[in-house]
């Protein structure tokens, strides 16, 4: 298991992890230390920071800090669920298409191309209009937007690995296709997939935030970072913190996740560095 944490030796990886842990802790446990009820006005609307409300109040006079501490779970939870689902679908399609070497490949890939042709946000809006704006719909919709391009990356990486000797040796041993894919192919395509995963998660957050911002995802008076920005955007001149604080949390999370994804991919790429410097090439 120790190899899973090797990325911490890269400084940006350790910083990324620290940032992500901070944001996740705020999102998960922030509500237990929130000074006020997020849905009850505590003062004059849009007043600046004070000792009663450290980040001031929003357009209805609710405490911005409390709403911030309550509003992370939905963003992170939805984005994480959507990204995981997108990877489950994308990995399955990409590995099958890349490894099968049969007519399955073109069929899957042309289907994926059709999916890619839809403008993502429009697709999501149409889906929400048709199926309603439930949490499940949002997750499935975002996953469906991401899965096609994930499957393309996975397929390309798989094609490259399947011609290697170790895969052929496994095939010659008569191993089942699933065993070959899991043991021989998957570990060797992790590096590109992980670099990509950081970006995907960021994209999930942004698209969910966009939908919430447009008022089609979560509905007021729910506390949600994206919703906070959307609600207060017109009054940014009066209390800048009502917009800036949730925006900063989303930004921190995306930066942290990307730093971590890159560091993990790099540590995989050069894992098992030789103890001696035999690596000087001829």
């Amino acid at each position, binding site marked *: 298991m120790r190899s899973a944490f090797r990325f911490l030796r890269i400084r940006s990886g350790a910083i990324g992890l620290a940032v992500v842990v901070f944001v996740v802790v705020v999102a998960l446990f922030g509500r237990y230390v929130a000074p006020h009820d997020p849905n009850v006005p505590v003062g004059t609307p849009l007043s600046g920071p004070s000792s009663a409300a450290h980040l001031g109040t929003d357009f209805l006079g609710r405490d911005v800090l409390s709403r911030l501490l309550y509003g992370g779970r939905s963003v992170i939870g939805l984005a994480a669920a959507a990204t995981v689902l997108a990877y489950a679908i994308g990995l399955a399609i990409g590995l099958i298409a890349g490894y099968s070497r049969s007519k399955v490949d073109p069929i899957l890939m042309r289907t994926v191309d059709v999916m890619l042709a839809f403008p993502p946000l429009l697709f999501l809006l149409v889906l929400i209009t048709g199926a309603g704006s439930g949490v499940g719909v949002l997750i499935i919709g975002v996953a469906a937007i991401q899965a096609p391009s994930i499957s393309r990356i996975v397929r390309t990486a798989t094609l490259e690995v399947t011609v*290697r*000797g*170790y895969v*052929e*040796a*496994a*095939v*010659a*041993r*008569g*191993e089942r296709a699933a065993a070959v894919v899991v*043991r*021989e192919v998957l*570990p*060797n395509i992790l590096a590109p997939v992980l670099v990509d995963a950081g970006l995907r998660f960021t994209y999930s957050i942004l698209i969910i935030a966009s939908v919430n911002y447009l008022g089609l995802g979560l509905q007021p008076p729910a506390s949600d970072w994206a919703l906070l920005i959307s609600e207060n955007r017109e009054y940014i001149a009066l209390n800048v913190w009502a917009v800036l604080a949730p925006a900063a949390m989303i930004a921190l999370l995306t930066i942290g996740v990307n730093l971590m994804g890159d560091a993990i991919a790099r540590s995989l790429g050069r*894992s*098992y*560095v*030789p*103890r*001696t*410097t*035999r*690596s*000087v*090439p*001829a």
Partner: protein
Amino acid sequence: MSGDGGGPVVRVEGLCLELTSGDPVVQDVSFAVGAGEILGLVGESGSGKTTTALALLGYTRPGVVLRGGSVEVGGEAIMGSGARAVRSLRGRVVSYVPQDPGGALNPSLRVGDAIMDVLRAHRSDAASHDSVHTALERVELGADPRFGRRFPHQLSGGQQQRVTIAMACVCGPPVAVLDEPTTGLDVLTQDRILTELLRLRSEEGMAMVYVSHDLAVVARMADRIAVMYAGRVVEHGPVDEVIGRPRHPYTRALVGAIPDVRRPRALRGIPGVAVGVGEWPPGCSFAPRCAFAQERCQAAVPALEETSARHAVRCVRRDELELSEPGSGGARAAAPAGAGRPLLEVSGLEVEYRSGRGRNVAVRDVSFAIEAGRCVALVGESGSGKTTIGRCIAGLHVPTAGRIVFDGQELDGSARDRALDQRRRIQIVFQNPFESLNPRHRVGASIERPLRILRRLSRADAAGEVSTLLERVRLPARVADRYPVELSGGERQRVAIARALAAKPDLLVCDEVTSALDVSVQAAVLELLAELQRDLHLSMLFITHNLGVVACVSDSVLVMDRGSLCESGAVQDVLSTPSDDYTRRLLGAAPCLPDRAVG
């Protein structure tokens, strides 16, 4: 063009290069090359030969710094000069021919434009399509006037290498540095390229520094040889003397490691592994692997001392060793002939590849048999279909037609449809040890897998068997905990062999198993295979393009030309009296040592 004919065009004095960490890579290297002379720079991977060669172009790899000494090319100091000065010398005074032309040519640039770029940089007056065509004519690519319009991927490996040579010569530099220019090309193409280079040298008087690990190739090209080991020149002298009467034990060992078509003998690998940068032992760096080492060898680094006017050796025992027999083993003991029944019979094998709408026939009506306990070599150029045959036997490629009968039973085309025991008894070792082991699995896990899948051993039994197998291929048991990147090419190939042996096979298909390895490592791997074949009564199908190797390992040989068998028979007969014209051409092109060597 070739300077004033007087002094040397390349002069390297006391060159020292080290890593930024302080470990020396090249230590006190000095040599000179006269106009029109070819110097061979020989050594194993990691000996510093490429680093030295790149220094002639004023280039050091990132992480390598100049510590001392000077490099003068065409009378101008190139090492340590400013970037602008160095750039104006490269291509005009000294040029470079890389090892891998496929990787060195820009895939999005037409080859004519690539040559034009060199001209524009140095001789803008002469930059015209005519001079590009002339440059291509000089490397015999001028027949098609539109050749320059092609992209690198439309050329064969040999043509690509000719283009890089044309780029190197187009400005008529007095010196060219060639870094293993024929490694990775097959013998016939290699032969043509070498002839080409010799012609360029005699016509244009270009001096060359030819870097290679293959003494046989260097013997054909060079006038003088400098043998490098662990960053130092250990022997330096005229070709005839260095190869005919090697004085340094390392040179001797290298000579003994070269498979020779004309004098088949058991090869002798050099024991141990070449020392890496940062691990140089005190005293003579070859001492730990040297059969003649004494205590005083470890006392101090021996000086490079002249034994005759132009021959210098870095060995304290150079005079004592002079008369002892050069390192060559006896003749190979052939397996008992005729006695065995055929283990594998291939009849009427046909393989077609479908590409787009067309069909390519890769293998056409090939039939042969392998008797139990014998080694059959399958020889041919790249693209002759030899690897495809090996893959069909291993069940990795389904033939279009024909039968493969193994031990009396017909084999299914695909490995998945074969019986467990059939899969177990046929094993394949792949060409490239750098990608035949899963980089994410420890060596032990890679070897364990066939034990568990094909021999149904329990986890505990398999783990015990792994160390036995590693010992079998002469690797220490602790290697089981390592990952493939921690091993050298030769060590990885041994692991790949151990993985194949884990299945207790009867037939081993070896697909170009040594072509990615240094000559000395190749000898050690071949030695191991010969021993395994003898001890385990293995049958082998040995696929190779190197006729010298064939002569050293196999009992009979099959020669393939463009998908068909053109000749087959016992090794001695085919190699001494070839009946087919193609075999004769292959034999003629195989590089071998001059007659004097290895008396």
